[in-house]
């Protein structure tokens, strides 16, 4: 029994889902995001949605936050002071020399988070093998601290070269700062990331120091507010790499929350794949401005270990959710070469698509769908109606530039947006050596279910899954997470018996730090590569209960060579080496009991309208039904438009729908054989 609720704060809306484990009941709430004070917005939506009694009974609050990333986007973080190895003061600003826009000779890098006057050198040097090359000079720390105090520094980052190999000097710097009376936040690079590459580790450490006061303050306030309302359970926040951590830990490792936002949907999709026994899933999360996709293999969303956010690299695990600027609000236009383009500019919430009647004049993906009848009669929640005529007029205007009528223009917009999404999916799957045709598409987000069968057709996929609460699925995904903690350490060794023993020694140290009462799985992983290569593949060997690797070097090597071949299509006759060790301690939350399969909402009689079929390339009669009225036992043949509160599902000719006992809607291509 574990009653819980989740709140996902997005750019436009804050979504809440409350799940009562006693009776399987679910409350759903949606409110405008309060960007200036998200905790107040959350308090409001909790008050509006969750009865006091239910809140007191809840055991877990699970949260996805954008506070950290917003601090970076808006450059409203702490004043950070950075201690560096003498001679390496500018690592953060020198970067690696590459450009975000590789063919733009006018591109320049954004200013670093720490200005040069607050990046101060300390005489010390550790060599790559961990030996001390130059002893640590405490007086340099004292001098730097004076400068930091004079400049109002709130948070100090320490980044010494090769600290991943020996953290002695970073620890000495921390001790010195404390002895000198500094009581503010400190981020040490070796604690943030045990991996090599000084620019990437500097960037990660500085991001951590920069968002730390804001994120920890926010989490403290939020927990206080919930406690005042009577909540007595655990407060957890999603990590960028999936899984959740307690607010107290998030305050210590705030950089791990940076990509918290889009992760929950992928984690929820992973859970759904396990429940439905889908071995290869691809998420299609389409919101107002972006399309997010993630590959899910054997119920596990793919995780990467180096990412980038707002041009800043982060050495942190993160669920590999790829985003392109293609969503319901993406604006269509004709470029100077005379081709039709869709996005990346979006009409957003204001003014929104033309059919919202809030002042938008440029046709969007939503306008094209409305014109084509894919949104059925255009009824919105609250009795509002879409102005389809306005969409048509805007499409006509755009079409004139191309010599196309509104109908062809609308088809073109959907086709191009769909192609862009399909190519994003293809890149994600092909990079992992997977064939997208064998996958199921998991469509959610406000506009995802509109594109489900279009994507299936483009990619040759036979099955589309539309989860319950598809429009709020990211909030739902929060509820199924485990508590996880993880660390990594770079130490390059040959993959042999000795190497595995050494890796186990390092893992044991990391697990000793990570494991807590109730940890029920200690999961080791190894980053391996062929000797001579740089990039690594991560393998997950079997483990003993204490987290020690239970496979011998030969077995691990076999797995690596197999995964490598799957990913890259060839094998190399070269020895394999260990580059980094990764330790994850997992504490499962109590499983949710079987929840009710009922989907809320009105049930109206079946209706119909003429809408455009992409498989038939003409308008045909689509049935229009309410999702709440679909029966678990029967197949309903497309063409069909399925309505529910927060999203609309478009089922093209050639597909049929049935409802799984869990309430999940499954769309299959007829004759696909599965």
């Amino acid at each position, binding site marked *: 029994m574990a009653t819980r609720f989740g709140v996902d704060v997005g750019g436009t809306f804050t979504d809440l889902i409350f799940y009562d484990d006693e009776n399987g009941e679910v409350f759903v709430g949606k409110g405008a995001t309060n960007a200036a004070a998200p905790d107040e917005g959350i308090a409001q939506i909790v008050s509006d949605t969750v009865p006091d009694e239910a809140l007191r009974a809840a055991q877990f609050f699970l949260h996805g936050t954008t506070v950290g990333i917003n601090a970076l986007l808006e450059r409203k973080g702490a004043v950070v002071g950075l201690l560096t190895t003498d*001679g*390496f*003061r*500018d690592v953060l600003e*020198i*970067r*690696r*020399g*590459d*450009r975000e*826009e*590789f*063919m*733009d*000779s*006018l*591109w*320049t*890098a954004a*200013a*670093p988070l720490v200005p*040069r*006057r607050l990046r101060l050198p300390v005489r010390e040097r550790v*060599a*790559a*093998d961990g030996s001390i090359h130059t002893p640590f000079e405490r007086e340099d720390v004292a001098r730097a601290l004076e400068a930091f105090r004079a400049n109002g520094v709130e948070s100090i980052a320490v980044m010494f070269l*090769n600290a*991943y190999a020996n953290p002695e000097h970073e620890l000495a710097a921390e001790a010195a700062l404390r002895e000198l009376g500094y009581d503010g936040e400190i981020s040490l690079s070796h604690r943030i990331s045990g991996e*090599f*590459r*000084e*620019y990437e580790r500097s960037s990660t450490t500085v991001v951590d120091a920069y968002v730390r006061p804001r994120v920890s303050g926010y989490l403290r306030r939020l927990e206080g507010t919930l406690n005042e309302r009577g909540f007595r359970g655990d407060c957890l926040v999603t990590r960028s790499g999936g899984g959740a951590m307690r607010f107290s830990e998030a305050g210590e490792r705030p950089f791990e929350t940076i990509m918290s936002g889009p992760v929950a949907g992928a984690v929820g999709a992973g859970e759904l794949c396990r429940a439905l026994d889908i071995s290869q899933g691809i998420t299609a999360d389409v919101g107002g401005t972006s399309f997010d996709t993630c590959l899910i293999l054997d119920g596990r969303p793919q995780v990467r270990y180096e990412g980038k956010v707002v041009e800043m690299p982060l050495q942190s695990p993160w669920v590999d959710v790829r985003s392109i600027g293609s969503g319901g609000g993406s604006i269509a236009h004709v*470029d*100077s*070469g*005379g*081709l*039709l*383009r869709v996005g990346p500019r979006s009409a957003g919430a204001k003014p929104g698509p033309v059919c919202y009647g809030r002042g938008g004049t440029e046709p969007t993906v939503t306008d094209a769908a409305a014109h084509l009848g894919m949104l059925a009669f255009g009824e919105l929640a609250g009795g509002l109606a879409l102005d389809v005529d306005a969409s048509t007029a805007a499409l006509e205007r755009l079409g004139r530039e191309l010599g196309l009528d509104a109908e*062809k223009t609308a*088809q073109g917009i959907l*086709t*191009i947006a769909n*192609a*862009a999404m399909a190519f994003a999916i*293809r*890149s994600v799957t*092909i*990079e992992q050596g997977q064939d997208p045709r064998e996958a199921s598409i998991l469509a959610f987000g406000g506009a995802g279910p509109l594109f489900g069968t279009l994507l299936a057709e483009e990619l040759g996929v036979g099955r589309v899954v539309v989860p319950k609460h598809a429009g709020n699925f990211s909030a739902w995904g929060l509820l199924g997470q485990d508590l996880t903690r993880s660390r990594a350490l770079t130490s*390059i060794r040959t993959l042999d018996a000795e190497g595995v023993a050494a890796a186990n020694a390092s893992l044991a140290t990391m697990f000793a730090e990570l494991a807590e009462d109730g940890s029920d799985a200690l999961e080791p992983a190894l980053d391996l590569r*062929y000797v*001579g*290569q740089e*990039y690594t593949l991560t393998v997950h060997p079997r483990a003993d209960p204490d987290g020690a690797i239970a496979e011998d070097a030969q077995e691990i090597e076999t797995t690596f060579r197999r995964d490598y071949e799957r*990913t*890259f*299509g*060839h094998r*190399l006759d*070269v020895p394999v080496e260990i580059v980094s060790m990764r330790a994850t301690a997992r504490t499962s939350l109590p499983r949710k009991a079987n929840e009710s399969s009922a989907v809320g909402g009105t049930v109206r009689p079946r209706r119909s309208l003429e809408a455009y079929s992409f498989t038939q390339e003409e308008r045909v009669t689509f049935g229009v039904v309410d999702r709440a009225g679909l029966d678990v036992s029967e197949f309903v043949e497309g063409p069909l438009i399925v309505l529910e509160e927060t999203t609309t599902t478009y089922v093209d000719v050639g597909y049929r729908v049935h409802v799984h006992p869990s309430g999940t809607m499954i769309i299959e291509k007829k004759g696909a054989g599965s």
Partner: protein
Amino acid sequence: MTLQSPGTTSGSGSAATVDVDPVRTEVIRHGLVAAADQMGTTLRRTAFSPVIYEITDFAAALYDRDINLLAQARALPLFLGTFNHCIEASVAKLGGPEVLEPGDVIFSTYGYDIGSHQQDATVIVPGFFEDELVGYAAIKAHHMDIGAKEPYCTDTTDIFQEGVIFPSVRLYRRGERQDDLYRTVLANTRMPQAFAGDLAAQIAAATVGLTGLNRVIERYGIAQFRESVERMLEHGDALVRTFFERLPDGRYTASGAMDSNGITDDEVPFEISVEISGSDIVLDFTNTPPEQIGPINCPLAAVVSVSRAAILSVAGGGESANEGHFRSIEVRTKPGTMFDPQPPAPIYLYSWAALQALDVIHRALAQAMPEAVPAMGGGDLGAMVWWGRDEDGTVWGDVNDHQPGNGASAGGDGGSPLMHISCSGIRNSPVEVLEARGRIISERFEFATDSGGAGKFRGGPGVDNFYRALRDFHVTLPWERTKNPPWGLHGGLPARAAGIELQFPDGTTQIVRKGTGIFIPKGTLMKLMTGGGGGWGDPAERDPAAVASDIREGYVSEAAARRDYPHAF
């Protein structure tokens, strides 16, 4: 010699083929760009040498059967549209397209065909759809060694010293590796294991690209595919023409100079003219010095690709380029000059001449459009190539680039140092990665005060990179712009020039400009100082608050600020 893209329409503006479905064309364009990108991803992730996966010194592209560029992976702009000549020459040498068969893999290292030095070994794989030749996947990648007189050289006098020539040979026939040939290739490199690994990665990447091409053709059929490709090329052409139509017609000339030709120490000045008339643009290299005895000659194919990069880095609008983007560009050269040398003239350092040419083209364009280009960045890559032997006799090799300061522009200061725009995919190697290999330790990696050019907007500072050798090895340092400082624009001042100083353990020092195979005994300190970025606009117009900030942050010393910005005090 005049060279234009195939299918050039002379100054026709944007005559679009309106009856071709613009939606299908856009979808096909997406598909081809994605396929080319996947070639790049595959190569990077499977390559052996850091120079490929870390420095992205490669080109990967898809062409149609008429040798029109369809799409190219995001890597080195220097290699933009680099394969036209190579594919043409290779197919001709083998006896025409009709002799090609599915499963053939063509391999070339001939510098005058590939438009690169010979270690940029090129793989071309013809693509077939239902037994019909439909296009080519082409990949060139920098290999650590293909048997040049040294693993990297600055002093060659003909191409035979620059690496073994494989003149478009079939390394695979109908999918069968030609083992006699393969062993010959590997027998001619000092690093056969790395070479074999990188070559396998090239072939894997080409295969991935052709799979993507076939997927597009399969979806739409060959006829519709070809129709849309032509419409796509017209679209690219129109984009570039729209940009140049806005510029005033005229002939704009600018000059630059190479430090030396690698054999003698004299500077080698040259000039390039840019002629704009309507939407047509001519890049005129005819007034350049004769072929040089040292390796700074730049073969025609490389002149064409760097010209394309020069234009598209200003006028391309961030698009993935195709052959259409090049149709408005005409390149004029004179055979027997440094920018159209004839075999067997040495070309090993061709790319350094190409980098300087790109900067000079931008300097000329600045006259037509002051906002379009930045002042000169440090003008070089700051490359270092070093190699030695392990105790067991195995030869190892390593390479790193060191980015110079970035030029200021009308938009603001130069900011962080960046790789030269022609090599913008390149990243430096992290110090911690270099040190993990145990051969060097870095003693400094930091900005040099006062190294950026003064101006209304200040050029970005150059970087001091100091390395201490932890064992004996050899090094080649092919540096440029150690004599002529990077220029400012529109009244902005020049920046610090690049420089190299070696301090040997015996107390002697050596200043290096271009050095090949210099012996570095253990304990030597190598000081590599990259140039700064030039300033933009009159320093007298710099905001005094910005000057004060420069001093406070330590980018500019107070003495230099008083000299260059007296109005701020």
